């Protein structure tokens, strides 16, 4: 799959990109770090199939790159940040906005929050951990599965990692469709499947100990 096509000129500098590794079989670019600091990339002639890129972490400032033919806000909003793992508080409004579409008559949203008990134990806090590159890839794959089943306009899924207190938001899933019924169904499928396949782990912390959820039979 064609991912990036750019033609830098001699003398251009690529400060900030520490490692680009194409991994066999994944249609993926991995390990790009520090994109924030990029300066002086000139002559990029069109990033063509941003959709196929999986596992990019932390591309936040696409805007500053000169010469990209497609709208940067388009790339950033529609393709990159729709699937996000974050150690910052999630914003349901942002996720809803990412799923909105003029062609949709419905946006269904699921917000998962941290509850204060689990199997009769008092939960003090939660810790989430993710295998980020794979988690993003799996979110994209289950979205693709959902698109086979329902007439979906847009999907956005954000998952929190790190330490969370009671009441905080752990996950937000939003999906837009022409009519409400399929939005509810698609949303339920997305969160249910996320819980089954996306490599994210939750540790419950009690007053007297801690447990990785579902680890043991």
């Amino acid at each position, binding site marked *: 799959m064609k991912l990036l096509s750019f033609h830098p000129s001699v003398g251009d500098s690529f400060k900030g990109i520490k490692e680009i590794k194409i991994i066999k079989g*994944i249609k993926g670019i991995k390990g790009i770090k520090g994109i924030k600091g990029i300066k002086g990339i000139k002559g990029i002639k069109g990033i063509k199939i941003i959709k196929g890129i*999986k596992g990019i972490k932390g591309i936040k400032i696409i805007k500053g790159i000169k010469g990209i033919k497609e709208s940067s806000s388009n790339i950033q909003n529609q393709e990159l940040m729709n699937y996000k793992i974050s150690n910052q508080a999630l914003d349901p409004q942002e996720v809803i906005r990412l799923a909105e579409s003029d062609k949709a008559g419905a946006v269904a949203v699921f917000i998962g929050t941290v509850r204060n008990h689990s199997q009769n134990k008092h939960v003090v806090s939660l810790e989430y951990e993710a295998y980020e590159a794979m988690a993003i890839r799996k979110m994209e794959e289950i979205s693709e599965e959902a698109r086979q089943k329902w007439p979906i306009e847009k999907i956005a899924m954000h998952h929190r990692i790190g330490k969370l207190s009671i009441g905080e938001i752990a996950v937000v899933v939003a999906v837009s469709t022409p009519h409400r019924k399929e939005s509810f169904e698609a949303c339920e499928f997305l969160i249910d499947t*996320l819980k089954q396949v*996306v*490599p994210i*782990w939750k540790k419950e912390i009690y007053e007297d100990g801690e447990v*990785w959820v*579902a680890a043991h039979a």
Partner: protein
Amino acid sequence: MKLQIKLFGIAREMAGSSTLEIELEESATIKDFKQTLFTVLPDLARLRTLMVAVNTDYGEDDTILRSDDEIAVIPPVSGG
């Protein structure tokens, strides 16, 4: 061949490290890898399931590993 392994969640805690290096025969499969892994870290065998991801996708028992693969040990997931 030497394989660099990523570990997450309870597997990371059991190993006491988020990475691990394991030496296997060339063309070893995930099944071979798990056998070796369980001898190094027997606690992992007690988990409900243990998947192995190769280049960010779930592998099968007969998936052949290569030294440049990104390999990760995936204990039962519990996101959401």
